[in-house]
């Protein structure tokens, strides 16, 4: 079964790293969408359905804190798993206070961390 993922991070380098990890690990991911800030991500989520959102927190325009709150408050989106991928020191506290957040990966992360995340959240079996 192929899953779709939305990567939300203002760093194109980080988005590319996550995409590469997905490809190299041969994770069963079909469509990979990208957004550079929370505002663009919410617009995208209004048009496409995804199985997982990987969200940075520290972004311009609309940060990940606000984006995540809006996702969790939206009846159409609140069941979409959101995982934080962040360097923010208070990311763990934010995740604890929002039960809809399914996990947190601290930056700097390793490809193994991303692979394990996909296994935990989507139940995929990775190589």
């Amino acid at each position, binding site marked *: 079964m192929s899953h779709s993922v939305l990567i939300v991070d*203002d*760093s*194109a*380098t*980080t988005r*590319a*790293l996550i995409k*590469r990890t997905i490809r190299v690990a041969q994770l069963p991911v079909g469509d990979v969408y990208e957004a550079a800030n929370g505002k663009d991500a919410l617009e995208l989520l209004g048009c496409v359905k995804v199985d997982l959102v990987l969200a940075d927190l*520290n*972004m*311009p325009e609309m940060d990940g804190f606000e984006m995540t709150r809006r996702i969790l408050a939206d009846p159409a989106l609140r069941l979409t798993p959101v995982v934080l991928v*962040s*360097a*923010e*020191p*208070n990311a763990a*506290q934010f995740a604890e206070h929002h039960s809809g957040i399914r996990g947190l990966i*601290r*930056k*700097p*992360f*390793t490809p193994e961390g991303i692979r394990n995340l996909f296994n935990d959240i989507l139940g995929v079996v990775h190589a």
Partner: protein
Amino acid sequence: MLEQNLNSAVEALAESLETMAFVSLLPFDEAPKAPATPIHVSIAFSGAATGQLELIADETLGSKIVANIMGLETGDPEAAKRSWDALRELANVTCGVLLPKIQNGSTEVFQMAVPTACAFDATAGWDAFVASPGVMVLDADGTPLALRIADRN
């Protein structure tokens, strides 16, 4: 005075660079000259302490980071295209690793700004930058990487 946390900042930078891009930091034996194409990256933070973390790095280090992350050749134009972005992300990650180290028992939550990057005039500013408090210059894959942590009023 945040300058007292310089060692913690160096540790955070080393951890970030090694984990992100497999680039090690080494000390310089003698005072290095400015990078050939220096980029100045800055990220402000507030909370338990208010200050900013700055890096001055050669643009080629950013390309090297991208190349290592993406499995590209160092000279690949795709790596060069993202060099500034990679340096901003390095500052972002380094700051995130550093701030818990300087929490000093405070329960106040840290806030990080979005990092910014601009070209740096080495002729005018390198010597003054490296002579200022809270600065260390390290060897990152053969190029000088200057780090500064300082209070911000």
